[in-house]
């Protein structure tokens, strides 16, 4: 029987310079490096989609549910469209939704977090109370309802996901801003007569930027996950192919009972890898920045749960 290992992780040294912190954060974590490489590769593939996709996206190039072959490495889908082509274009849409929705939620969450943390008092109270309500309302059902009412389009999907994913970011940023605000150099800057805008832009934001990046990467994972869920329920943009919609159409057109595993396995594997990569990279950065967050570090969804540690004003 092996012994219990009493291993306490030493907090990783936060470097002096802010530049290159992502590299430093994940340098010693091979899994996170692999995740970052995968994310970069996928992003490049997505950008180059029109040039590297081997076949046209909207044209039948072989038999329905054709088997994988040398011409079509992953076979053909229910419309006789090349799966590799579909996956390349699908990743493009999924990544666009992931990044754009995350951008929306970072702008909202970042602003609310900075304003609440920086000004404190009544502003903080009101903003955090609103955040509390948003935390409690289940996001996927709300997304479904809003998407169903607004009607399917890529823009709607992005907005719907974006306006619901900002809560965890707002909390994390607020806590950090609150501590930065009390630091001596910020007080000095204020004493020297710097305005709020200058202090926030010059002194506070650079300090929370790393956390914001970690939060961004983790939110991208959730956004991609949510996009596949919406697409699967028929609420995606019907004019675009996304990884979620590939899974959905394979399910609806009975790829399984036809035995066409190649139409349904690869898109799911890609989504899984994307989410895994984001979780690993985001987790590693966050881990390096703030060992206290370790409890929740591996899972973006867990962020919604974290406020339990202390709700409202004294939330960490």
């Amino acid at each position, binding site marked *: *029987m*092996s*012994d*219990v*290992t*009493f*291993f*306490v992780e030493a907090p990783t040294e936060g470097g002096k310079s802010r530049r290159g912190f992502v590299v430093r954060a994940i340098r010693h974590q091979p899994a996170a490096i692999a995740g970052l490489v995968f994310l970069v590769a996928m992003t490049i593939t997505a950008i180059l989609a029109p040039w590297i996709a081997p076949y046209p996206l909207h044209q039948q190039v072989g038999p329905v549910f054709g088997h994988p072959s040398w011409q079509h490495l992953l076979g053909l889908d229910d419309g006789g469209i090349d799966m590799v082509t579909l996956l390349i274009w699908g990743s493009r849409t999924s990544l666009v939704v992931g990044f754009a929705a995350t951008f929306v939620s970072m702008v909202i969450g970042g602003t609310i977090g900075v304003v609440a943390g920086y000004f404190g008092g009544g502003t903080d109270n009101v903003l955090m109370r609103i955040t*509390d*309500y948003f935390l*409690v*309302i*289940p*996001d*996927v*059902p*709300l997304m*479904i*309802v*809003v998407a*169903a*009412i*607004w*009607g399917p389009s890529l823009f709607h999907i992005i907005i719907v996901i974006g306006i619901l994913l900002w809560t965890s970011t707002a909390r994390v940023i607020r806590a950090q801003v609150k501590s930065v605000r009390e630091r001596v150099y910020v007080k000095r800057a204020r004493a020297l007569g710097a305005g709020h805008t200058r202090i926030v832009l010059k002194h506070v934001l650079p300090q929370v930027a790393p956390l914001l990046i970690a939060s961004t990467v983790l939110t991208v*994972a959730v956004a991609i*996950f949510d996009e*596949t*869920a919406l697409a*699967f*329920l*028929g*609420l995606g943009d019907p004019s675009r192919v996304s990884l*979620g919609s590939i*899974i959905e159409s394979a*399910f609806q057109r009975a790829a*399984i009972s036809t035995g066409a*595993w190649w139409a*349904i*396995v690869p*898109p*799911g594997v890609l*989504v*899984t*890898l994307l*989410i*895994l990569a984001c*979780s*690993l990279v985001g987790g590693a950065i966050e881990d390096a920045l703030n060992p206290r967050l*370790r*409890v*929740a*570090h*591996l*899972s973006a*969804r*867990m962020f*919604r*749960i974290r406020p*339990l540690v202390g*709700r409202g004003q004294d939330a960490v």
Partner: protein
Amino acid sequence: MRGIDYVLKRVGFAIVTVFVAVTINFVLFRLAPGNAVSNLSRVPHATQQLRHALEVQFGLDKSKWQQYVIYLKQLSHGNLGVSYENEQPVSTNLRIALINTLPMVTLGTVFAIILGTFTGVLAAWRRGTKTEGASLSSALAFYAMPTQWLGLMLIILFAGIFPTGGMTNEFLLNPPFWTHMKDLASHMFLPALTLGLTLYGEYTLIVRSAMLETLGEDYILTARAKGLKPRTIVRKHALRNAMLPITTLIALSLGYIVAGAILIETVFSWPGIGRAVYEAVLERDYPMLQGAFLVLTLSVIFFNLVADLLYFKLDPRITE
């Protein structure tokens, strides 16, 4: 702050949240594009008279505030409206759906809690070994899988062994009780397994983190210095203290499980609340969608409150 104050505050928060949720529910469905009559009654080319008659019938000629008050009043009587699809009261439809969902969801959750706690403790205990690596990577993999896709993969794996759709075998007419139960259980297996596996990954990560945190505490060192067996230390000292975050996190995640059931029930045609949401979306059955959304939100609020109270019960220091 005294304990009773804390409890009252949390209950108060929950009640206000319910109110906010109900209001969001009212507002959302009135933001629908197109005018209210075409949305609520689905008559694209109606005459003026018909439109007016419908507006009066649906109470849409009244002001928004009056509508809101009427909505609240009806809601307090348990009236959620009538489904467009089968013309049954929404509340009846939802009750049947909820009864179908609960056993499946419970089975999956219990499975996830047992497996997740086991692998999580194992991972923390064997920190830095291959065992930890294996349990952590499998947990992460299942955590990252899209729920609906995992369900479809299980269908491919188990097709022919377990039924992959519906809740009962429709060809069994008036089966004896045990046959019926067996039939039900075999239908429940795959959806419950899907739910269990997606949750298990998450739980493993939570349990492992909580265990690592407690294993680093001083009293563990003391227990070790006393010469206690590692097994005793893990069970009586570490796990017991780690249960605090674990229990509350699990209680909190219960609320989201109901939401996660939407995807699973769609894949397996399980006639529960999730499938009700899916069908309401497909048919643009707004009263059903509204009702189902309310039920899902209320369940999340409820489990949040449970988590808060549980936390207080386990750790009364929270009020200090």
